[in-house]
């Protein structure tokens, strides 16, 4: 599934503490998790309701 890649702020790199990378990895680790089917099903259902 294609997801928009968030931009990173290079300007902050110089003063970022060591843990800053961990914060991004924390976020990215969830982004990269397999997506439960329930979300696609929900949208399909909404779509069907809208056109049914």
């Amino acid at each position, binding site marked *: *599934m294609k*997801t928009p890649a968030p931009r990173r*702020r290079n300007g902050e790199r110089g003063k970022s503490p060591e843990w800053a990378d961990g*914060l991004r990895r*924390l976020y990215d680790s969830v982004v990269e998790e397999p997506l439960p089917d329930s979300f696609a099903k*929900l949208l399909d259902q909404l779509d069907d309701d809208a056109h049914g």
Partner: protein
Amino acid sequence: MRMGNAAAPTPTDSAPQGASSSGTPSSAAPARAPRSAHDAIAFKRELTGVIPHLRAFARGLCGRPDLADDLVQETLLKAWAAQERFEPGTSMRAWTFVILRNAYLTDMRRNRFRADYDETVAERVLVAPAGQEGPLHLSDMHRALLTLPPERREALLLVGAGGFSYEEAAQICQCAVGTIKSRVGRARATLTQMIDTGQIPRRSTDDSVAHDAIMDELDATVQLER
């Protein structure tokens, strides 16, 4: 990334804190002419595409994966109902983050996440280990993050994890850019201090157990304060 103008893409249920925002997206007249089929397909595709980001933002905000996914479901429902107000070409991620954030705040006011008590509890669960061993674990990072006040946590998540600019984060949080900068700065200072001194909430053998313990403590706190 463009967010579009402030008025158009903002769903009606994204009222700032303090306003009544319990309602579902308004059934009032849409902001513009009905969408073409092409727009509707594009909307669904884009909305699907941001789900992983919504999950990441929600997880960072409320900590618990199950509640975070509930929040994402709620967000998808609201976004779907408000799709006439999404301006094609603007950032779907920013638009849906506004919805998710407001749903979170509404739920929090209903005491669902009880993040208001994070700080109190954090003071009690914080321990200073003899020495921080090894690299910082992501779970450590997450627990540290969850001890921050909600408004600082969301600011840091948006800028430091989600890659939004201060300006974009300010639009999402509906506050001034200076406010966002201040919140991010304070959040960073707190986390830096917490990590430098090893004062991260203690790790359990099982994070869900740790979280349950924290939630139990929150329950006790809530009971005591009633």
